[in-house]
């Protein structure tokens, strides 16, 4: 199912689409261009808090017109396969290179999503990576949270966007 048809099937509101569509598209592009992986958006969830199911999460802070964070969470198996695709050799633990790779994937997804969302004045911080099975990702209560679930050839992963200010954010001039 394509991103558009999934959004249509789930009857996602236009306001939510404004956030979901750019990040869904840029996530697919990052994995396709940098890893040569085909990924599919398989689910969209909107909630206030979320317990990550995966082993490794990359975070980037968002400030300016929107405030919050963007999180990319991957399972160890997906992280190892992605590191192998980047480096040519497969790691056997979540080492510094795997952490660096998750941080860079997060950086590229957040950066590309920021540009495609069409809102002026968004700034991103530097990526941080947290590891450990069962770690919890909790967004501020006032944040609008979208969790995008993807499938990849090596397993599922999520992109989580938790931001405030979406209603009042102005579009960029062309």
């Amino acid at each position, binding site marked *: 199912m394509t991103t558009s048809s999934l959004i249509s099937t789930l009857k996602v509101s236009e306001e939510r689409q404004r956030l979901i569509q750019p990040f869904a598209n840029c996530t697919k592009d990052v994995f396709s261009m940098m890893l040569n992986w085909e990924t599919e958006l398989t689910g969209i969830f909107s909630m206030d808090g979320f317990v990550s199911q995966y082993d490794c999460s990359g975070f980037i802070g968002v400030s300016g017109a929107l405030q919050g964070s963007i999180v990319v969470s991957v399972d160890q198996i997906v992280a190892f396969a992605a590191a192998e695709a980047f480096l040519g050799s497969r790691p056997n633990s979540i080492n510094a290179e795997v952490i660096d790779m998750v941080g860079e994937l997060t950086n590229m997804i*957040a950066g590309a999503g920021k540009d495609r969302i069409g809102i002026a004045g968004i700034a991103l911080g530097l990526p941080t990576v947290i590891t450990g099975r069962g770690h919890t990702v909790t967004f501020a209560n006032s944040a609008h949270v979208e969790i995008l679930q993807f499938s990849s050839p090596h397993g599922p992963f999520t992109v989580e966007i938790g931001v405030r200010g979406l209603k009042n954010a102005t579009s960029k001039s062309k």
Partner: protein
Amino acid sequence: MKVLVADDSGIMRKIIVRSLNSVGVTDIVEAANGQEAIDRFKETPVDLILTDWNMPEKSGLDVVIEVRAMGSQVPIIMVTTEAQKGQVIAAIQAGVNDYLTKPFEADDLRAKLDKFVTV
């Protein structure tokens, strides 16, 4: 030909180094942040700089501004997730010669390198 590669991501530096190797460049200096890039540049003259924008200590834009303030005309390629028009203009005004946005395909990077690499 000596090339300076500045990116706080070791993975991204490896990707760029691999691409440089593929076009025959093996004399490569690496820096993990903007200040380190400026320090390396002061120590060793290079023929090309590839720099990320968002780095700790000093940004890639700071690197460009400082390198140009030293009077150097070395070609600089900015390799970054920053793709908004205003930022591209700011980078070019600061003295960037070319601009590549992440994510990119290997061929995109090689095409940029082909413009500046003389081996």
